[in-house]
């Protein structure tokens, strides 16, 4: 049986439907960048090892380089181009801008999409590898700097902007950064 190696699909991206034929090999990342001219989502490694291609799939952060486009049909896709409210930046975007949470900017869209999800995951009570006691308790533990660092670790930044990224995520989350060793005595 000769298998079809392409499909006509419809992708729902940032609230808009896009009909397109795709080669099954096409990842969501390549579909966004090369077929739909949504180049805000970045290709850093194409292997799920850097997080630059992070988008939200049904509200959850996902690396789009390992997500086949054909398998993303029927799901709500949100990219960096879709996180602002019109002209008004998302609070995470604003915090990255104000606190210089980036340098070259290439990992930035992925960092921002990831941070948006991190804040939601934390609010939903999801523990992380930095959570001392993962057993469910009456209260969600605070979003400390250590928690932010661990939760944001799937987004590599080679310029070394992590310090201000942590501050930006904390500001956007409305969290006081606590639990941080002070550098100065």
């Amino acid at each position: 049986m000769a298998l079809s190696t392409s499909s006509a699909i419809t992708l729902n991206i940032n609230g808009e439907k896009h009909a397109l034929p795709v080669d099954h090999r096409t990842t969501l990342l390549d579909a966004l960048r090369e077929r739909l001219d949504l180049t805000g989502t970045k290709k850093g490694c194409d292997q799920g090892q850097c997080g630059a291609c992070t988008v939200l799939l049904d509200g959850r952060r996902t690396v789009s380089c390992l997500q086949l486009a054909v398998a993303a049909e029927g799901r709500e896709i949100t990219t960096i181009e879709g996180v602002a409210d019109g002209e008004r930046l998302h609070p995470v975007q604003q915090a990255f801008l104000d606190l210089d949470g980036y340098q070259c900017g290439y990992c930035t869209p992925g960092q921002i999409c990831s941070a948006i999800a991190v804040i939601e995951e934390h609010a939903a009570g999801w523990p992380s590898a930095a959570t001392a006691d993962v057993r469910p308790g009456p209260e969600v533990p605070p979003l400390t700097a250590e928690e932010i660092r661990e939760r944001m670790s799937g987004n590599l930044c080679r310029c070394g902007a992590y310090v201000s990224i942590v501050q930006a995520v904390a500001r956007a989350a409305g969290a006081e950064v606590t639990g941080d060793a002070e550098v100065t005595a």
Partner: protein
Amino acid sequence: MREFGYQRAHDVPGALAVLGADPEARALGGGTNLVDLMKAGVERPALLVDLRDLPLDRIEATDDGGLRIGATVSNSDLAAHPEVRRRYPALTQAVLAGASGQLRNMATVGGNLLQRTRCGYFTDLSKPCNKRTPGSGCPAVEGEHRNHAILGASAHCVAVHPSDMGVALAAFDAVVSYETADGPGEVPLAEFYLPVGDTPHQETALPPGALITAVTLPPAPVAALSRYRKVRERASYAFAIGSAAAALDVRDGVVHDVRLAFGAVASRPWRAREAERVLIGGPASAEAFGTAADAELAAAQALPDNGYKVTLMRNLVVALLTELAEEAGR
């Protein structure tokens, strides 16, 4: 990446029919390992059967007090599940120690068990590898093997299984359920991975064309006090160089029950049964923990550059069990 067909399965019999009809078909879960290996040319399926729509994404309590975890439950949902966190905290910790938030959202329980080694020779088509190309040789034995196996390996393959989740599942006696065209079956995780021997390319006891449907955790009161510790060359987003899942039940200073499993030391999550045997009924002391670790690691066979793992695992066992013993005493 080679061209391939794609189908979305809507029920288990439908998925089995497609998988059974084409030996070159592969089941697609989260794709976090399979798609990567397809890009690398290591996996070359003719057809992908997408499991996303299958009704295997639930975590349910079993009648005997255990948990049945559907095969397509995401790592994130597994880790965040209140009953998992309450009854098997080391499992939540193990899952959260793996990969990244993004990958955990995509990756499934079934896929985690079936993921392939990250050995740098296995994932590079330009190099020999007995697991990828049987008979081509294992360059890691003479080459780069700092992060390779010290237990249960052979001269044919010294790769380690990369799973964190699997280590906790092994400690808690998980059972893998599957379906085939001929009906359902199940296999304890302890027997799920085949010995390496001279067939490192044959990795699991899963029959051809079978589909993992669930992983069941039997009730394990000891697991309520459990912990997973992972050591790696980066603080996060890196595979283990050594890890351990431990659970401890101490009564009057005596080890009443204990579970211990190791990660990143063997071709499978390594249940440390010898250590457990030594510990049961003995004192909950650092000395006893060390003796038990030594008993388990007596079988270790180190290569020139991975002998540190023996020390690392011994220290990890002592530290982890000591912490649990202190917590039990509180």
